[in-house]
């Protein structure tokens, strides 16, 4: 009897979890499947919400909105429009790449050295400094908005890509996370390398970095996801709309061309999707390590 109750309980838990999980997955699936719908189908399904979808044409618009997951007819027409007919999207995609890749690489490079320094020879000054980094990391973007703007003007990089890239490179998040990882490296290992006559730089390059390879990857994924979706920074630091990344541009076509928006969003999702599927373990590891402020 008791065994049976336990079994029923477990089944119930499973049902709850799996239904929750599907609810969470739904918007992602919706974006992907709807990107394969034809323009007319999108207009028919969502025309009542985005009235401009069907204006002028004599397409059928259903009275009610139709949240549909499976397209009537799989078509690549939206992709064709997005990728071949209008070079704008590819250009914006390139803008995103050219902003985000230097930030991720730069932040990792700077953070590697800083984290190593925070790990070795921990003095009082450094502990206070590290605490500063944490506080800084926790500040909402609006607090750093004016500082970023001021600096970009001092340096004369306002309205150029550097205005976004430079503050990104020195953002403290990666330093924090990598320090967490590095502090777990057994001290004896470093001491052993030292006895073998290795200098600090050698220890850093030949002991520390190889041991942190998975950590670097997980930090890279987290930083990438964050900046790939940035909105505020370009809006404030890049007056020139031509330099804006796709993350902002995408939202502008939502109401006018929803179908296209789904296709472009799917394309935009590809890099994160790839990183996600390829490195989910690292991602989870990265999140896990971010979990302890102390230590």
């Amino acid at each position, binding site marked *: 009897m008791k065994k049976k109750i336990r079994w029923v309980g*477990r089944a119930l838990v499973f049902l709850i979890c*799996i239904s929750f999980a599907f609810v969470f997955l739904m918007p992602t699936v919706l974006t992907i499947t709807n990107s394969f719908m034809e323009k007319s189908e999108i207009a028919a399904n969502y025309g009542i919400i985005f009235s401009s979808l069907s204006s002028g044409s004599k397409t059928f618009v259903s009275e009610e909105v139709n949240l549909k997951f499976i397209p009537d007819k799989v078509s690549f027409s939206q992709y064709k429009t997005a990728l071949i007919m209008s070079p704008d999207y590819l250009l914006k995609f390139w803008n995103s790449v050219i902003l985000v890749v230097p930030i991720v690489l730069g932040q990792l490079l700077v953070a590697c050295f800083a984290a190593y320094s925070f790990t070795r020879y921990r003095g009082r000054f450094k502990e206070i400094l590290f605490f*500063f980094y944490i506080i800084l990391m926790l500040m909402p973007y609006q607090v750093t908005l004016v500082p970023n703007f001021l600096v970009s003007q001092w340096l004369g990089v306002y309205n150029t890509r550097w205005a976004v890239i430079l503050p990104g490179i020195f953002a403290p998040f990666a330093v924090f996370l990598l320090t967490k990882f590095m502090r777990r490296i057994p001290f004896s290992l470093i001491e052993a390398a030292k006895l073998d006559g290795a200098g600090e730089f050698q220890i850093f390059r030949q002991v520390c970095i190889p041991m942190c390879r998975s950590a670097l990857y997980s930090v890279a994924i987290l930083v990438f996801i964050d900046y790939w979706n940035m909105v*505020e920074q370009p809006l404030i630091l890049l007056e020139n709309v031509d330099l804006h990344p796709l993350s902002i541009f995408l939202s502008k076509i*939502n109401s006018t061309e929803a179908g296209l928006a789904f296709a472009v969003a799917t394309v935009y999702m590809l890099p994160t999707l790839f990183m996600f599927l390829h490195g989910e373990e690292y991602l989870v590891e990265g999140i896990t390590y971010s979990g*302890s402020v102390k230590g």
Partner: protein
Amino acid sequence: MKTKSVRAKYEVREKLTCNTFLLASFSGVLLFYILPFCVVMYYSVTSADISNHSFVGLDNFKTVINNNAFRLAAKNTLTFSFTAVPLAVILALGLALLLESKIPGKSMMRTFFLSPMMVPIASIVLVWQVIFDFNGTLNQFLTQWGLDKIDWFKSEYGQIPIVLMFLWKNLGYNMILFMAALNNMPRELIEEAQVDGAGRLYCFFKIKVRYLSPTLLFVTILSLINSFKIFREVYLLTGDYPFESLYLLQHYMNNMFSALDYQKLSAAAVLMAGAMVLIIAILFICESIFGKDVEG
């Protein structure tokens, strides 16, 4: 004696090399964050007159605090954060506890829960519009059940879809953090307590929650930070001037920025930073009192 001094010299040199590693990051942080923030603090106590930045004390702060738009924004931001953050923490903990039990397909579910992280913000906004628009899917359901339609984004209910979006985006991340913490829980302790006849509730509140307290602290802080990031979505959904219930502090600051009113903006930024430091300090103190005998 001589060898010792050579060794000491070596140590000093190595320490110096090690500290220079910090130089790039430190100067960057100084230049891009700390120094400009000092300037912001300076702005916040001077007058807007460009010819002579005269000291005006707390006048800017007074103007900002007495400003109706700021008050509305602060109220809305507080309401949002104080609903969304506790929900995100509690629900994520609940999910993590559920996923602790022996059920199949756990890793798949974990992937599903993390999937919101990779969806571009613009398409989240698109999906939310489809669901919560006046003619959207949700209102369709409501009318089917004979209820009145609600214009979600343009009513006092405006925060509900945003809270749901926040939960959808953040539960997975928080859940992973809790799952990791639960994994590191000393099993023997719980088993011993159970042998001693402790009930399930006792085990949960007196043992698990205590051991989770550092994680609880961190998840709370993280959710708080992310609750400020939801502005991106709200902005893309509703623009510069949304309905009253969705006018957040960030809207206020962005609009100050567009109006080039740096004095008020700086005062608001300093207030916000101060509030954040205060909240973080309170959370840290709570954690150190609550979880002090389990530090290890």
